[in-house]
Structures are given as C-alpha cells and as structure tokens.
C-alpha cells in the first residue's frame, strides 16, 4: 500500500489527517475532469516508481528550504506534457502549500477514498510463499465472495506465517495462518494445564 500502511510500522496521525483532505480534493477534481483512474495511476506511479529511484528529487520535494517557486519549476519541467493537467495541478497545489513531501500519503489516501466511493475495499493478502497469478485470482475471488464486496488486492510475503493465508481488510484481520494456529494451540494447552492445576487433577510427576 503506502507508508501509511500500519503494517509497515510508523504511522503519523497528523500526516494522515492532512493527506485525507488533499486526497478528497484530488479525487473530486479528477472526477470533475472525468479521469479519476488515470490521475490516480499517474500520481501513484510518480510517488511509488519514479521518486524512490531519484532520491534527490524526493529530498527536494520534501525540503522546506527549497522555495515553492523552484518546486513549481521542477514540476513544470518534469510533468508538463507528460502527465494530465489535473495531475500537474494537484502537484502544484501540494507544492504551493508545502505539502509535496507527503505525496505518497496523499496518493494512498486518494486511492482508499476512490475505492470507498466505488464500493471496493482494500485488502492485503499475506502468504508465506509468493503466489502465482492464477492462485492470486482464485484467492481474491474466494475472499470477495466471502466478504460480499469487490476488493482491491495487495500481495505480501511473510515467511514467518509458515503456511496459510492472512487477509487484512481495513482493521479486520482474517487469519488462517499456521503460525497463528500454533499460537492458539499453545494457548489452549496452557489454559488446559492451568485448569487441571486449579481442579486438582494435575497428575504429571517428574
């Protein structure tokens, strides 16, 4: 997803809150221009594909030392003609308000908002081993049927799960991983022993 994915660790509520406001503006402007999907795709690839490859550009965007006019000039040079006018304008607005540094968060929030308006939910599928495309499609279809809602899937791999699948939709986690099952089994055995001790039927002797 983005740097605002809580699973990724650090969360900044302040950034999240501001990003939501810009995201709403971006989505509504794109809707008015009738090109929501394109605008989101452009901004998304800028935030996720381009900027990480050019760390200097990201640093310039984030730095408050660089005046807004210079940022605007950079945006014009890089984006004008290549991106849609709505996307370029969005970047300009962010630059003018000194919020260009949170482009990633804005894009993520915009994608979430767009999905919400389409009645889709964002879902993260985590498995112990990478899935191939056919498996992915099957898993997503299966879960979509279970939660009765179309999903925008993201896939992640975490070997610590050992096996099985963990799906996160919003704040709800559907967990059928081997790791969690083992933890639960351990907890149950533990509980059983405590009960046995309490009821005085503990018979194990060493």
């Amino acid at each position: 997803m983005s740097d605002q994915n809580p699973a990724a660790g650090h969360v900044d509520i302040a950034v999240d809150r501001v990003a939501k406001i810009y995201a709403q503006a971006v989505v509504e402007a794109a809707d008015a221009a009738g090109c929501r999907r394109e605008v989101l795709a452009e901004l998304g690839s800028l935030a996720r594909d381009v900027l990480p490859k050019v760390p200097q550009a990201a640093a310039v965007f984030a730095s408050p030392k660089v005046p807004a006019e210079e940022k605007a000039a950079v945006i014009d040079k890089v984006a004008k003609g290549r991106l849609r006018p709505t996307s370029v304008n969005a970047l300009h607005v962010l630059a003018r308000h000194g919020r260009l540094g949170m482009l990633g968060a804005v894009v993520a929030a915009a994608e979430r908002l767009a999905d919400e308006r389409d009645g889709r939910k964002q879902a993260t599928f985590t498995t112990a081993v990478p899935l191939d495309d056919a498996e992915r499609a099957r898993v997503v279809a299966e879960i979509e049927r279970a939660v009765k809602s179309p999903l925008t899937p993201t896939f992640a791999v975490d070997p610590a799960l050992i096996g099985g699948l963990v799906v996160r939709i919003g704040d709800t986690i559907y967990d059928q991983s081997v790791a969690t099952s083992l933890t639960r089994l351990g907890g149950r055995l533990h509980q059983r022993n405590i009960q046995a001790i309490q009821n005085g039927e503990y018979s194990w002797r060493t």
Partner: protein
Amino acid sequence: MAHLTDEIASVLREEISRYESGIDVREVGRVLEVGDGIARVWGLSGVMAGEMVEFPGGITGLAFNLEENSVGVIILGDYLKVTEGDEVKSTGRLLSVPVGDAVIGRVLDPLGNPLDGKGPIVTDLRRPVETLAPGVAQRSPVREPLQTGIKAVDAMTPIGRGQRELIIGDRKTGKTAIGIDAIINQKHSGVKCFYVAVGQKDSSVAVAIDTLHKYGAMDYTTVIVSGASTAAPLQYIAPYSGTAMAEHFMYNGQHALIVYDDLSKQATAYRQLSLLMRRPPGREAYPGDVFYAHSRLLERSAKLSKELGGGSLTSLPIIETLEGEVSAYIPTNVISITDGQIYLQPDLFFAGQRPAMNAGISVSRVGGAAQTKAMKKVSGGLRLDLASFRELEAFAQLGTDLDAATQQRLDRGYRMVELLKQGQYAPMETVDQVLSIYAGTRGHLDDVKRDEVADWEKGFLTFVRDQVPELRARIESSKELDGESERQLEAAIAEFKRQRAAGAGRQLAGAR
C-alpha cells in the same frame, strides 16, 4: 520419564485431534504511543467505548477515548511491557471480574487476580465491572438496619441496608476505623463485606487486612487492593470491580456491605487519566464527568424489591478532606450523592472523643426508617440534644454563671459524650447499645462522675447480662422497648445503682 513423555504425547494428540482450524477473525490496531498507563492506538475503527482490548502478552486495556483518527486506551496491567508498534486486538467484550463465594475471604487486585498467595480463584461466575444501577421499579425503600456496632453511629446516624452513608473527615480522624468496625460487626449478620482500598499505602492496607484476620472478619470479607504504587487505571476501576463482586450477592437475595477507602484518591486517579487523555479539565482540574464517575458507582448500592429477591448493597464511601474543607469539589459531589454523612473532626478526635463524630452536621437521610423500634425510642432527639450541647458548652466556656437548668443540660451532655465514646474494634450488640443509651438519655447517669461513666456502663451491661437476662432476651427478640420492658429496665437500673453504691461502700470500708 518415559511415562511423562507418553502422557504429554497423549494430551497433545487429543488436543490436536479435537483441533478445528477455524479462521481467526480479529479487529486490530497498532500502538502509536504509550506511557503513564495509557496508550494511543491507530486503527481499531470498530471498537466501542468501554470495550476491552488486548495487548500482546495478555495485557488488557479499555477503550476510553474514541477520536477521529485514534483510540485512547487505558492499560490495566503492566504498561511497561507494551511498546510502540504492538498489535492491539479488540475483543468485543466488556471488562469483567470473578464473583461469588470463590472471592470471599480473598485479597484481590481490581481485575480479580489473587494477591494473597492462596491459589487461583476457581469460579465460572463473572460480572461486568460497569453495569447499570437498578432502576426505580427494581428498588424498595430502605427498611432493615445495618448495625455498625458503633453506639454513636447506630443511635444518631443509623444506616439501613441499601443506604449510602459517606464517612468524611481529615486525615487521621478514624474514617477507616468506622468502616473496619462496621465490617467486624457483620460477623453474625450474614452480610458479605467488601473493602476496596484505593490509592492507600500498602502498609495501611496490610494493617487493615491483619485486623480483619484477627477479629475473624476475613471469613466473610473480600479485600480489593490497588495501592498507591499501582497505575492510575487500576485505581480508577477498583471501586467498580469491588461493586461488581458485591452486586452478585445483592442480586442473589443476599446482603452486602462495601467500604470504598477512599473515593478522593479514585477521583485523583481519574483526573490523572483524563488529563493524560487530553480531556478538558474543569474545576480543580477534575474532568467534567467526575460527578458521574461517583454517582454511577454509588447508585449501584440499592435495596432491591421483593420480586428481585430483596437483596441489598450498602456502601460506606470514604472521602478525605483537607483542613476540614467540605466545600471542595469532590466532597460536595459525594455529599450530594450519598444518603447522609458521618463527619469526623480532628479537634474532637484529639479531645478523646472517639469516634470523633460531629453530631451537628452528621446526618442519615433514610436510616431512621431502618432503626429498630427500641433504638428509635431511646435515641430519638439524641443527635439534636448533643448538637445543642456543643453550642451550650462553647457558651459556658465564657465562664458566666449558669442557671440550674442550663447546668443540668450541660451535665447530661457531658455524660452522653462520655457514654458515646467507644474503643476501636469493639462493636457492641444492639441490645447493649439500647440499654446504655436508655440509661444516658433518661438521666440515670446524671449522678455518676464523668470519668466513671465508662466504668458504670460496663458494670451495668454485665449486671443486666448476669442478673436480668430475661429482660435482655426480651428486648433482643422483640427489638422493641414496650411499657413492661421499660418498667423492668427502670427496676434493673435502680437495683444496679443500689448494688454499686453498696459495693463502693464496701470498697471504701475495706480501704479504711
């Protein structure tokens, strides 16, 4: 060893064969920041206010503040083990504590975990810590007395089962002593007792528990401890969880007594939590809902209607004042919530009047209906007489000459004050109280020297017990002082006085 391995293997096999691999569905959040017993959590978007949440390692918390982007959680347990980034699970349940006979005689923390080293609490019975108080239709008026065994309290500010009587006073004026005495006196009444120690020094709590043990009161008492070193969230919920344990008996048609020692410290803990949660401070920096925190707690003490079993929960909240300041925020709040107060004063305490109860401003708003007929008859007007005596005494100190009637009222007052003095941990039976107070209020002590009043009382009670037991039995069983009993009592007093005078004469002759 082989035997052990086999047994473990068989248990594991059984457990695995019964294991259903269900999907674990949970709603989660992530700890953003943690400290001082509270955590701010990102996520948990579906959590409800007051819902229990779970941190890794089985530490529980309560959703306290629901904000736009985060949830404020109070951590009930070791908050030092919770770190930033930890996953928080919502449980969909409310906080509950074990209740029932299993908790009787135990020392517990506010979550119901034992602190006395007497093994686990084995029970399936649990009650939510926060419940709604019984409504109007579920209650009946307070009628039965709850005897504290303290003459001054039972005669002047009688407490009924289901009543809330506040004990208020400065530090070191004997507030806890009244609560402990009331608990000790329930030994034969079948009332289950709960002593909730909030924010107390652990040494004081240890002394209280030791006293209860010594007088055999721990057989029917539960002590809920969250001492001064416990985190504020636990101090805040301790009274509620103690009440939950006591309520269990009330709803099962039994009677319970709960002493909150003390609610000022709970209010302080709640203030700490609220300020850390950035709720706006109000008067004395307490949050706006500190009144509700106490009113919803004390409202749970009730006398239930017959249809619900007629059980009752009596509460004795304790409030500590600073320099006798009863118009501070928390004292006025709790005074207005409770059905009366016992006001203890340091100057009376140091003048040797113990319990140091100020008769003028101590009241019981409903307890009169709960007094036994005998007690009502002998103690009627006692409180007002004593209050007016205090005024008269202050006036008499000016050294003016007094007319005979005034002097007589003063003498009566001095003797009543002497009579109402009572040692700690020495609760008196109701019938003995009736006998003593009868002698005092009917003027039979007027010719006894002030420093001999206690001795006279002791001798008289022994005399009645030994020489006219039928009178004692009659009053005890009928709980009434009818004309016949009164005649007998007058005769007994006259006879005792004669014997005492004769005894004193003999002693005098012997000394000569």
